[in-house]
């Protein structure tokens, strides 16, 4: 329960129905999609406009009250996990698309707007919002900004950061500032502040208004699904595609366990194989058709055991449905899972997968692999049963070894899910003490009280409780399902 004085101050900003303090009301906010952790916030506020957010952040700064901004709580790294006894600022009600300007190809949105809603609003103009995390029908732009979220289609046109042109933000000390503009050059002159803010994991402050660029819908997609009897061969096929000079919109791989899960959940009709590779070309029809012929030639030489070409939009959708639903599908195979998000240089994917195979034997846990092969971004899903004593700890130890592996191969511990709460102890494996010092210094220069998302990204600090086992609180409350 929060201190009376603080509550009274919050009551000046929020009516009772948007200031949640009772246990039952707080329950849905206790964790995010990293369900192994939970913490009880002191209170949750639900602002409906940016003035309320600004007032709240200023109040938090004054009182040195830790806060965490929350979109839809789908973070896989514990980024939106509440700070025990701190304030959770729920942004879902700031969900207005303020402007779609098809001529300049931009949209101006509030932070709580759902990723997919931008594309839906842009569709009538033949435009779309490119970054497509698998969670796009539920996650918010604010959350995407915090993690620089990506998706299957980020190979060619980049991740969230590459699609944000301007922002208005309130920094953690209450300063309101704007950067960037409606030109596609974004900030263009002076340091790229959009680039700095995106990926700051909620530690700099809260994004209040975001201008994103829209892209014209490609005239044609051509999608091929190739099956392999060996994961390594699928990886080799990726290298061959890259070497050919083609630039696909997406290149994704799933291994046997992930295929099995996807089959069980959405009946994508995938072939029975050790590995599946999805490659998609997109763009001007004439160009795509010619390139697709070249691509099929490469796939043919890649010792695929089966090759399927999506003949129409329906077949394409089905291929993607299995891939995009893979995370949640794996959830059906196992009561609990941890998703890792390490990156390795593309040419070392094969090595990484062999190592992960060995590690899963060592820890006697199942690991399903679904990954963005085009940019070397792995997503091993480590399956465990939280009810089994020591299973979570084993899963975490395995996860840690995978991260160490990614670094030793010259990669990164996270490609798109962020450090959050989960990987903060691994930050020193990637950055020197001095580099972390500098980042922490920057954090303090913006947020002297270290109130914004305290306990995340940087090693140390108080840790929320590790729970034995659990589904997402929203799921428990019947608000979302894993479909």
């Amino acid at each position, binding site marked *: 329960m929060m201190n009376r004085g603080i509550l009274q101050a919050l009551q000046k900003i929020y009516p009772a129905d948007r200031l949640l303090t009772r246990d039952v009301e707080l329950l849905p906010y206790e964790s995010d999609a990293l369900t192994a952790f939970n913490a009880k916030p002191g209170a949750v506020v639900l602002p409906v406009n940016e003035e309320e957010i600004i007032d709240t952040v200023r109040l938090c700064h004054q009182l040195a009250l830790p806060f965490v901004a929350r979109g839809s709580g789908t973070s896989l790294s514990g980024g939106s996990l509440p700070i025990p006894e701190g304030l959770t600022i729920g942004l879902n009600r700031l969900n207005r698309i303020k402007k779609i*300007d098809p*001529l*300049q190809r931009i949209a101006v949105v509030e932070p709580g707007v759902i990723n997919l809603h931008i594309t839906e609003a842009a569709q009538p103009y*033949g*435009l779309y919002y490119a970054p497509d995390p698998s969670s796009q029908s539920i996650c918010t732009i604010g959350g995407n900004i915090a993690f*620089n979220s*990506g998706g299957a289609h*980020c190979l060619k*046109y980049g*991740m969230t*950061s*590459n699609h944000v042109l301007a922002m208005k*933000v309130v*920094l953690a000390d209450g300063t309101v*500032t704007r950067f960037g*503009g409606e030109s*596609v*050059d*974004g900030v*263009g*002159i*002076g*340091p*790229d502040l959009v*680039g700095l803010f*995106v990926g*700051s994991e909620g530690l*700099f402050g809260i994004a209040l208004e975001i201008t994103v660029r829209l892209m*014209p*819908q490609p*005239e044609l997609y051509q999608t091929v699904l190739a099956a392999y009897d060996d994961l390594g061969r699928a990886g080799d096929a990726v290298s061959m595609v*890259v*070497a050919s000079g*083609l*630039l696909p919109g997406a290149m994704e791989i799933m291994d046997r366990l992930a295929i099995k899960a996807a089959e069980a959940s959405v009946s994508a009709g995938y072939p029975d194989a050790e590995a599946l590779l999805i490659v998609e070309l997109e763009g*001007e029809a*004439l*160009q795509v*058709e*010619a390139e697709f012929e070249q691509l099929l030639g490469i796939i043919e030489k890649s010792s695929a055991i089966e090759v399927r070409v999506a003949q129409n939009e329906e077949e394409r959708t089905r291929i993607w449905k299995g891939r995009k639903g893979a995370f949640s599908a794996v959830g059906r195979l196992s009561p609990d899972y941890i998703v890792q998000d390490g*990156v390795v*240089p593309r*040419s070392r994917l094969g090595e990484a997968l062999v190592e992960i195979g060995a590690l899963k034997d060592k820890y006697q846990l199942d690991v399903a692999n679904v990954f963005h092969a085009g*940019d*070397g971004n792995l997503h091993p899903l480590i399956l465990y049963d939280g009810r089994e004593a020591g299973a979570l700890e084993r899963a975490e130890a395995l996860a840690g070894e995978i991260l160490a592996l990614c670094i030793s191969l*010259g990669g*990164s*511990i*996270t490609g*798109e899910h962020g*450090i959050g709460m989960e990987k903060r102890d691994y*930050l020193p494996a990637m*950055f020197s003490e*001095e*580099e972390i010092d*500098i*980042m922490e210094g*920057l*954090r303090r*220069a913006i947020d002297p009280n270290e109130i914004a998302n305290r306990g995340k990204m940087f090693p140390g600090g108080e840790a929320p409780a590790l729970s034995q086992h659990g589904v997402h609180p929203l799921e428990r409350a019947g608000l979302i399902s894993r479909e």
Partner: protein
Amino acid sequence: MTMYAPRSVTELQALVLDSERIHVIGNGSKPALHCAVNGAAIVDLSGMSGIIEYQPAEYTATVRAGAPVRELSAALREKGQYLPFDPLLPEAATIGGTVASNLSGSRRFRYGGVRDFILGAQVVDGEGRAFGVGGKVVKNSAGFDLSKFLVGSMGKYAIMTELTFKVFPDVPRFRSLGFHYEELEEALSAIYFINQSAYELDALDLAPPSVHPINRGKKNGNWMLLARLAGFDDTLPRRVERFTAAMTRDTATIRVEELHDSAALWNPLADLTGEFLVKVVIPPKQLPAFDALIAHNRRRYSVGGNIAWAATDDIAQLDTALTSCGLTGLCLSGAVDSALIGVPIDNALAERVKQVLDPLGKLV
């Protein structure tokens, strides 16, 4: 004015620690960025040059900041790859200078600018600390993304010594077309049409009457929309045909012509002579209002009308025009007190970075 040419990071660190004020130049290709640095030690990074690592299969390249752009471009070309942000001064600039000033040419239109292709950097900050930001793989979201912050940072926050980029495969063939319009508004409508269409252009620039060599000399010349398509031999001709047909579907276009595709044609600065050369970041919708104020100047609207390049002998007049349109400009050549003109930038967040990386204000 003292000039230093450090040859290693250690030498550079020592130099920063020993100096009160430091100013970095790459190759000095943008003289206006080096104004108002009187008394500062000038650091020439051309001694820290060379490609460190280029992995075509990874689409990544790491180079020292003092390396000439042309050296990296040549290495990439050999493997059929390129820097999609299209360094503005491919012959004269260094890589570090291109990043620090964030200058992209017309091909930025296709895939994005410097910020979209920088992956990481090694820097020396105002405290003399040498450290890394970002990473070396094409995807990485660990830690704050200070590498993007360096884009456009003008050497005022940290000195870049090494840079890692994402690169892309290039295509072998190009065709360039010129569409003539009597009025800016008509040309702008054509840009809007392209914006909402699925035609994938490699570059799209707008040249005002009497500025482009092709228009020059003719009285009452037209606005010329320059469009470039890139691709492979087998489909390019048909794509050009389709695009041309779509662009001339109504009568607004007076004339279309095929232009000789050359580096000169796609150098947005090619014909911009004047004492001062200025980059302006501009939303296309503001072009008519802005152009009306600077119509007597040589100018070109590049990257689909999102970046304006203007040459002028009267910087005060341009400054006034920018201010009245709510725009900011970056002066690249000519003697100015400050390279930034027009509306000042809200620097609240950048100042925090300055406090951390250069609290003594050494880097100018």
